[in-house]
């Protein structure tokens, strides 16, 4: 094995494959095949490409708004309990943890004619976001004694997680010299899904009249949907083989589209935009939906001293169940995918080099520098999350491009990223690092991202 090969393997084994769902470095970067996945209207200047199966696009991201791993696990002189309490104090019910992993199983593309490029593939995705149910966690951690007269809000409970496989095919079409448009059709195959949001209701303990305290469960409406977790007997049953198998054409089918465009306002100014994952999945297999609704007041047990041998406790229990019924069903339901929006403006400058496109007779001007702004938005259960990125892209050599980004979003106001893309012969690879300022102490970072990809490009 050559040194280079050893380093490739070593690098692959060590790298954590973390990449932001906001693919701010990948978006619009250096005309790589993977940019077609974030903008189907991206321009392509090659004849065909093939991703190395499993390696053409690996990404995993963890982001925490308001807290970092070191808040809980730093090796210092405070106890874990103190760290937990401090972190919980810092967080609010709008703080969240998000996690997204994507693996390209197959990715390829083929030029149909001088205007049209077809790309297709299959990838698996795991996506999770959970908001911090502060009231509920603190009720469980401290008990209700510190919360007499305070209200615990069940609406704090908000999370969704999904695992699915996506088979896709897209076209990038050059309408004219200025405008390139594209679209992608996606077939989703849902494997696992769980969510609970739009919950309502409160729990409170107040000074009572009949007894020392009155405990109230008010206007409760808690619902959750899940698919793939519970079997027909309502037992938790998740088998890895089934989970992976279901990412390829399961009974939970859905469709979605991506659309995008690239518009050259002038040879040096370019606008791009895309909308991704406008689609849904219909879950029907191994569903378990839960709903808890109602109102209840509890004063304690009222002893009657009337010799009727009342079973007070059973009475309490049946009263509660009648007032706050808990229902389950296995109905199918539809879940909309989180929609992502990208928009960017780019200004290119510096030395221009005109390249003959290999497949037709037109020429394209490539500047070796560009700057610009990107905006990213993603729909989430609580609110739409937005990130803004400023970038500088530079071609250091004909086949070596670097992109620097500065991003502001819910996770960080100091997220500086760098991406590198290079091509040696037909072998194209890219590496991207987000949040590099925190790289020497990743554990204190609230977001981390590194991405790898290998493709074969045939010009």
């Amino acid at each position: 094995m050559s040194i280079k090969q050893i380093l490739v393997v070593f690098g692959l084994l060590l790298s954590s494959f973390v990449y932001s769902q906001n693919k701010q470095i990948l978006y619009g970067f250096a005309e790589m095949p993977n940019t077609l996945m974030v903008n189907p209207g991206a321009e392509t200047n090659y004849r065909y490409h093939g991703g190395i199966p499993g390696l053409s696009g690996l990404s995993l991201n963890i982001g925490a708004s308001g807290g970092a791993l070191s808040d809980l696990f730093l090796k210092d002189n405070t106890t874990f309990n103190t760290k937990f309490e401090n972190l919980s104090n810092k967080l609010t019910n709008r703080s969240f943890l998000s996690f997204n992993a994507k693996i390209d199983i197959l990715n390829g593309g083929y030029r149909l004619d001088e205007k049209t490029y077809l790309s297709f593939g299959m990838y698996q995705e795991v996506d999770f976001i959970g908001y911090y149910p502060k009231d509920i966690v603190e009720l469980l951690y401290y008990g209700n004694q510190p919360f007499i007269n305070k209200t615990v809000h069940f609406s704090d409970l908000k999370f969704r997680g999904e695992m699915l496989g996506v088979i896709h095919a897209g076209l990038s079409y050059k309408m004219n010299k200025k405008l390139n448009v594209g679209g992608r059709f996606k077939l989703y195959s849902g494997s696992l899904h769980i969510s609970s949001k739009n919950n309502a209701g409160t729990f409170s303990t107040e000074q009572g009249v009949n007894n020392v305290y009155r405990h109230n469960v008010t206007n409760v409406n808690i619902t959750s949907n899940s698919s793939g977790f519970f079997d027909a007997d309502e037992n938790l049953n998740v088998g890895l083989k089934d989970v992976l198998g279901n990412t390829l054409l399961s009974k939970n089918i859905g469709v979605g589209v991506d659309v995008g465009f690239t518009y050259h306002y002038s040879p040096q100014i370019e606008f791009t935009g895309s909308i991704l994952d406008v689609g849904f999945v219909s879950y029907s297999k191994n569903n378990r939906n839960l709903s808890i609704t109602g109102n209840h007041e509890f004063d304690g047990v009222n002893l009657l001293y009337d010799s009727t041998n009342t079973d007070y406790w059973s009475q309490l229990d049946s009263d509660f169940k009648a007032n706050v019924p808990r229902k389950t069903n296995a109905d199918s339901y539809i879940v909309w995918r989180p929609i992502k929006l990208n928009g960017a403006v780019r200004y290119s400058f510096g030395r221009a080099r005109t390249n003959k496109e290999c497949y037709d007779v037109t020429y394209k001007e490539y500047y070796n520098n560009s700057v610009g702004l990107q905006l990213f938005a993603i729909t989430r259960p609580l609110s739409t999350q937005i990130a803004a990125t400023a970038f500088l892209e530079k071609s250091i050599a004909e086949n070596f491009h670097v992109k620097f980004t500065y991003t502001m979003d819910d996770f960080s106001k100091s997220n500086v990223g760098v991406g590198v893309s290079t091509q040696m012969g037909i072998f194209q690879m890219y590496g991207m690092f987000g949040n590099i300022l925190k790289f020497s102490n990743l554990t204190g970072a609230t977001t981390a991202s590194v991405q790898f990809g290998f493709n074969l490009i045939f010009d």
Partner: protein
Amino acid sequence: MKKLKSTPLFLIFILMLSSCVKHLDFSQIEDFSAKPIFESSLVYFTLNQVDFFDLINSVEVVTPIDDTSGFTILRSKFVKDNLIETELNIEVNNQFDREFTVNITFLDENNIETHAFDPIIVAENNPNFTQKETITISGNEQFLRSTKIRVSIELSPSSDGSVLDPNIEQKLEFKSSGIFYLKT
């Protein structure tokens, strides 16, 4: 333009990753211990003079009257494993011009006593009688078998020989709450 080699790329990866997870100790989570305190209303009742008067025989009821409620909180494995102390608070408004003796007993499924508090004496005409009783689980593990709570009230005889008048209203209001100290 010169094509650059990609070897430096991987060296950068390796260098950066070696320093990216320092100073963490995940084993700290084993030290995690929550100490929640839950307070809940328990039993309550209001008795009046008729409850202590046998109208048929026109005599006072001199034996204790009692009632029992189920109390199955301690059946939960989580509570059994993590309860370290229970505190019982009682608040009594005694409008009688007589003393009462209150006996609170916890019983298991076979009606065998698992814990009995010492008799609580409530003085006459005391509107704000309060008392706190504590059960420390360590040393009183049989308390964890409790599934019932029985409250028995005994009217003390008058000091001057007088008898209750069933037509004059007098009330005994009893309230109670429990505090459960847990430690995971």
